[in-house]
């Protein structure tokens, strides 16, 4: 494993499987009444969030705390950052405080890569601009694996704003590494112009790929995209690219529906679909904590056994 988790493209198949297997092992702890392990006692994990993302932050916080790490939450709002402190100075401050891991969420693509130059600890990318969100892809893969078994040859369709989606980028790399066949579905305006080297298929037609999808993952569509003419209206988007009960009915039996949240119910996903038995949306949240525990554990404690011999 690398010292940092910046992009799923950096993960080998062995790394990815190690994280997923470790998460599987750690998930057994989640079922216990006392969920805490002593593994990262005395280690410091900083949650450095330049963007508001309560969901991701508390997921990382819960993960670190269940491993007994000390957690410092550093939110950009109301801090020295809002007074104009540079990313580098923030990094040097965290470095001086002895952060063993920095979990960073930032609005600028590549900010975690820059941060990794300036701190000795491990950097975990918790979402950078329109680039990547590696732990989201890992928890998605973990969820798929639990529902469907191994991912080799599984067909995953990811639908929505691929151009601006860090979830899509991370998933394409990771799922390809794990042997799944990925199809991205979006209006042409919401796809990068040059995708020749992406290890996936691209389609503008949601309906044509529904019947051969083991997984349909819906991406959140920001309302502001509509004002920038990426598509004419929310209704038209929803008709062409939304997952409604009719489309759900045309998916193969056993196929699952995923969404990284937060959802726009009625926009990219109908409420009935989000709440259906085939939806894994709540499981994804649960699995998020487990997968992030595995990531922090593997980055910070290396080869020691994850939960010791006391199970």
């Amino acid at each position, binding site marked *: 494993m690398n010292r940092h988790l910046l992009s799923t493209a950096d993960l080998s198949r062995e790394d990815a499987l190690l994280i997923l297997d470790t998460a599987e092992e750690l998930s057994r702890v989640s079922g216990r009444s006392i969920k805490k392990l002593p593994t990262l006692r005395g280690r410091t994990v900083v949650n450095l969030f330049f963007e508001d993302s309560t969901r991701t932050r508390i997921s990382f916080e819960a993960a670190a705390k269940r491993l007994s790490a000390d957690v410092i939450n550093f939110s950009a709002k109301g801090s020295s950052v809002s007074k104009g402190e*540079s990313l580098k100075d923030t990094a040097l401050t965290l470095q001086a405080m002895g952060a063993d891991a920095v979990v960073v969420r930032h609005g600028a*693509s*590549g900010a975690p*890569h820059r941060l990794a130059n300036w701190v000795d600890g491990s950097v975990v990318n918790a979402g*950078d601009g329109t680039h990547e969100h590696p732990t989201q892809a890992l928890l998605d893969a973990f969820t798929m694996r639990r529902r469907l078994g191994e991912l080799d040859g599984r067909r995953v369709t990811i639908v929505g704003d691929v151009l*601006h989606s860090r979830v899509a980028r991370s998933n394409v790399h990771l799922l390809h590494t794990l042997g799944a066949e990925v199809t991205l579905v979006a209006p042409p305006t919401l796809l*990068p112009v*040059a*995708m020749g080297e*992406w290890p996936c298929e691209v389609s503008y037609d949601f309906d044509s790929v529904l019947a051969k999808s083991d997984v349909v993952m819906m991406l959140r569509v920001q309302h502001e995209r509509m004002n920038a003419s990426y598509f004419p209206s929310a209704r038209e988007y929803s008709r062409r690219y939304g997952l409604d009960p009719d489309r759900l009915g045309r998916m193969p039996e056993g196929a699952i529906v995923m969404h990284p949240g937060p959802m726009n119910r009625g926009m990219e996903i109908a409420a009935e679909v989000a709440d259906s038995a085939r939806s894994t949306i709540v499981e994804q949240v649960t699995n998020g904590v487990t997968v992030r525990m595995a990531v922090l554990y593997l980055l910070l404690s290396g080869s020691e056994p994850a939960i010791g011999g006391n199970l």
Partner: protein
Amino acid sequence: MTYLVKGARVLGGEPKDILVKDGVIAEIGAPGRVDGTGAGHVDADGLVALPGLVDLHTHLREPGREDAETVASGTAAAALGGFTAVHAMANTSPVADTAGVVEQVWRLGRQAGHCDVQPVGAVTAGLLGRQLAELGAMADSAARVRVFSDDGVCVSDAVLMRRALEYVKAFDGVVAQHAQEPRLTEGAQMNEGAVSGRLGLTGWPAVAEEAIIARDCLLAAHVGSRLHICHVSTAGSVEIIRWAKSKGWDVTAEVTPHHLLLTDACAETSPAGAYNPIYKVNPPLRTGEDVRALREALADGTIDCVATDHAPHPVEDKETEWQAAAMGMIGLETALSVVQEAMVETGLLDWAGVADRMSARPARIGRLPGHGRELRAGSPANLVLADPSVRWAVDPGGFASKSRNTPYQGMTLPGRVVATFLRGRPTVLEGKLT
């Protein structure tokens, strides 16, 4: 002072002795045949002699951003790079949009004395793109402005561009356009292509440059004016310029050294790691295919000249996340080396070609009669001696520029400037400022 330059290969040809006296080249002759009695001797064995280089596109940052560069430090860098004249871009603070500001910059250049500073005047007041700046007043000032540019921003309003092109005809001026369609490049961070898609950075599409170039070529033809295009960066732009020239229209173009050598892949895979904003520049680094097209266009003359777009920025404006970083890179002290690497070592240009593209043509476009002249008896003694045989590891720590934002740090480049003469006076000797 009189100098005898001994054994210099004029434009890369046979060794000659060059006698420099009273600001002009007094004599050029076979080695040992020129009488240098009483002259200071400069050993130029193995060195190539070129006319002093002329830069059509330099940001000296003064007035306003003296923390990044001053006229004195920027022109020192220019002299060390072999330049005897630089055109100082107008996007200073205050903007060089009045006779007062251009005269100030011009005077600062004279005081520094490292090379001639020819101010560029803004096309529109405050670079705001609303109304023309007082172009005539700048032309008539002591600075004798002939090149006008809103560089940094595009004169995107078609009517304003048309008027500017027409108006400067009265004093033989030229509008140098920064071709960037603003709506297509809102928030743009790097070339729009495979790399921007992977990195999740907002793309700057080639069409945003090409559409403006096409429009402006047509406008220039319609009103019979002279148009210069700054920092051409795409293969498509080259085709449009080639077409405009084939019509006989008075269109000229420049390319930067960095667009001749580097590609957008630098943003993803560089020794310094991904997302290093040292490679962030406007227009952005393009693809390998664009680099090939630009080199060929410079070789065949479709692109007239090399211009550095030397853009100094303080460290704190580059040691940031990519999106927050300033755009631009310094280039005066590496320009000749990069051109040697990209054009000479590849066989695309010989030294006579380099002299044409880095001295004669830019001087002609900028209307600088004292520069870019043939190296022969009677010409002003503006010349540079360079050693093409050395290779050096670029270390900005040794640069005269106040800024360090070079993308070539750690790279090994060929060729170094040994001496520069400005009207017979050495500004650089043995690779050092005099």
